[in-house]
């Protein structure tokens, strides 16, 4: 095995790496870069909406902004951020030296990055980037209506990132299935790995639908086909089915892994095992499967689908989701709670995500959705789930695992400032949008009339988005300051449970020098107890 040191330039180290930890970092840094870009677009839009009239951008630019913002946040930030965490921590948590297919893993990353840049390259061509919404509804996305080459680049780039996600998912399943350390049965797997397993399942079976849709759309646009052109016998509804068959599971791809992170963080800072581990596993699987059967709740107003079926299936997801929330609460109750930044974000997640879940049940009811569909109520709901949920989970994970990844702990004071800016910013930005939606303000409007009384709440929302921006700034400063310090973190700074806390921070290239005996889903906890002379306690799962 040749050492990377001989290769010289650090750039080459990163270009040629097949180490899952480095690839995880690459994913994380690239995804966060896209996040900053998507966030900038969000601020531009919020500025534009702060008052009636067009002040900051023209309508076409606004349309391109929400298209690129949505696309970036979902597919170039959210999904790769999941890949970042999974890459770094799945092999560590199962006690392996790397993924099963390390080179394929590197290929996934480079395909994702080049695909993402191709999507963004729309900004360089005449006509600008795609202007069809992140949902790309046909026939608006057909050539006569969306004339910019940016839309074609959007199609090609997204198809590439889709392939990257599918390759990654295969790798995660194979790694969890075949690289587990001796003694680590499936029912001793950390919850984070279970959520990545189910997430991979969703990627495997949902992404092909959107890849197909994109291919058909490109055939329509470039090669004279008419799959979605009604006048030529095509079917616009078919696009919606294919898109949402991917699009709804995608939402859970951006939720389940962060449920997993919460299930890691909360027990550690409650000093108790996860409450109801087996029910949690079952709930994860049920959420995954159900989420494949609810896609047309995005199509209630098309008049083309079964309203009762999709109302009921969407309602049912609330049950396993509720189980998760109650199990987290039961983990906390009776514990010994401390609140460093990761736990703050985890607790904030429980509060904010609950609101998002509840408003999700409201829009899942077909008759109520007749009113709320495509209004700011939906914008509020989706950001409630993604900003108040997924992002809180992402930050919980980053603060929790930063010592493991870099050997340095992020500062607590800036971390707390970040948490409060983010929480208050979320409330101020997005709760007013529920009211705007209830009053009937449609989404994807670059402008709104002054006389409808939507001005004040929009202004408030814009101020809130500034707080969110400040929160991200606090995080970036925190990272920059922390990285300038020398690494000083022990293997297990928090008193962790899963195997990643067994090895040094950061771990060596091959991850482990040794492994503890694995007799429960908390091997590191067991080892710590044994070392303290407390004997074996707190084991779970079958022998």
């Amino acid at each position, binding site marked *: 095995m040749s050492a990377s040191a001989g290769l010289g330039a650090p750039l080459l180290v990163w270009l040629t790496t097949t180490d899952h930890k480095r690839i995880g970092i690459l994913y994380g840094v690239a995804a966060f870069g896209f996040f900053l870009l998507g966030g900038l677009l969000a601020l531009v839009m919020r500025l534009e909406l702060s008052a009636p009239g067009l002040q900051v951008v023209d309508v076409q630019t606004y349309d391109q902004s929400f298209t690129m913002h949505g696309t970036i946040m979902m597919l170039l930030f959210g999904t790769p951020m999941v890949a970042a965490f999974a890459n770094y921590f799945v092999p560590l948590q199962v006690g392996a030296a790397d993924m099963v297919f390390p080179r394929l893993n590197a290929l996934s990353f480079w395909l994702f990055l080049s695909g993402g840049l191709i999507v963004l390259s729309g900004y360089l061509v005449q006509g600008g980037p795609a202007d069809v919404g992140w949902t790309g509804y046909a026939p608006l996305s057909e050539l006569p209506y969306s004339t910019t080459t940016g839309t074609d680049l959007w199609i090609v780039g997204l198809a590439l990132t889709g392939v990257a996600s599918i390759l990654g998912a295969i790798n995660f399943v194979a790694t969890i299935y075949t690289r587990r350390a001796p003694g680590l049965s499936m029912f001793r797997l950390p919850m984070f790995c279970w959520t990545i397993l189910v997430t991979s399942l969703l990627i495997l079976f949902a992404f092909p639908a959107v890849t197909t849709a994109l291919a058909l759309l490109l055939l329509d646009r470039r090669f004279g086909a008419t799959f979605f052109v009604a006048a030529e016998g095509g079917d616009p509804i078919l696009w919606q089915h294919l898109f949402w068959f991917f699009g709804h599971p995608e939402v859970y791809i951006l939720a389940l892994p962060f449920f997993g992170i919460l299930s890691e963080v909360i027990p550690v800072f409650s000093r108790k095992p996860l409450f*109801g581990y087996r029910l949690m596993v079952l709930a994860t699987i049920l959420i995954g499967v159900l989420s494949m059967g609810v896609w047309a709740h995005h199509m209630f107003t098309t008049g083309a689908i079964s309203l009762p079926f999709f*109302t009921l299936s969407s309602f049912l997801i609330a*049950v396993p989701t509720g189980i998760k929330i109650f199990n987290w609460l039961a983990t906390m109750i009776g514990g010994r709670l401390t609140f460093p930044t990761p736990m703050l974000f985890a607790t904030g997640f429980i*509060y904010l995500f609950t609101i998002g879940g509840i408003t999700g049940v409201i829009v899942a*009811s077909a*008759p109520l959705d007749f009113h709320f569909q495509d209004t700011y109520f939906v914008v509020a709901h989706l950001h409630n789930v993604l900003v108040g949920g997924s992002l809180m989970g992402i930050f919980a994970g980053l603060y929790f695992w930063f010592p493991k990844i870099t050997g340095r702990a992020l500062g607590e004071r800036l971390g707390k400032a970040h948490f409060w800016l983010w929480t208050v910013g979320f409330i101020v930005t997005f709760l007013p949008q529920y*009211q705007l939606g*209830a009053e009937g303000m449609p989404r994807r409007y670059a402008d709104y009339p002054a006389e409808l009384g939507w001005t004040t709440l929009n202004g408030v929302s814009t101020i809130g988005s500034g707080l969110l921006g400040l929160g991200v700034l606090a995080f970036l400063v925190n990272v920059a300051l922390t990285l300038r310090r020398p690494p000083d973190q022990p293997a297990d700074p928090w008193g962790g449970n899963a195997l990643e806390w067994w090895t040094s921070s950061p771990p060596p290239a091959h991850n482990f020098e040794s492994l503890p005996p694995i007799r429960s889903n908390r091997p590191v906890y067991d080892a710590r107890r044994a070392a303290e002379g407390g004997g074996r306690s707190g084991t779970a799962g079958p022998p």
Partner: protein
Amino acid sequence: MRRAVPATFALALVAGACVAPAATAEGRQIEALYTAFLVIAALVALVVFGLATFAIVRYRFVPRAAGIEPRQVHGNNLVEVIWTAVPLLIVGGLFAGSLAVLARTEARSAEPVVEIQVEAFRWGWTFSYPDEGVQVSGFGNPGPEIVVPIDRPVRLSLTSADVAHSWFVPRFLFKRDAIPGRTNTFEITVEEPGTYRGQCAEFCGIGHSQMPFGVRAVSEDEYRAWLEQASGDQG
């Protein structure tokens, strides 16, 4: 402070998203259903926020607990069954309520009094009354305005000339998509006279926010008079 946070959330949820009073019979049912959902939502939120706040306040680490390991509880079948079963019952109830309202919004009367054909286009609307030979079309602000009688079922058949649009009147708490190659039919019964602003709710390009329309609901007599005059204008 900690206790105030959840209370604010719950209040924001209940008070923070009120719909304008519905003007149609169908919309009133939707409004009633929404109110029921909000009440249940507030109860659920209170339970979750209450438990979370209880945990934070009661089980927060205090120095005198240092070194004491909490009891390592792994689960409890009874409570796990409870918080599986109770949510199931709740969503069952919500589903029944939704079905009941759907039965009303999806109902089609045997003989609607008024039939209107609607064609959406980039960026405006064409409304025609085929039986009466009246057509109203327009784009931009304030857009075309149609007139309907109150307390009578009005049937609209919706389609599009180009891309997907959506016919949305917030005071009716109702929208339906206009999709090329499809005709979507629905009925409304306006109960309160007045003029209601409608707008497009499905993204359709740069004119998307600039294609409002109006629905004026008047008494049967006024409606007849308007038809008379409109068909005269067009004849």
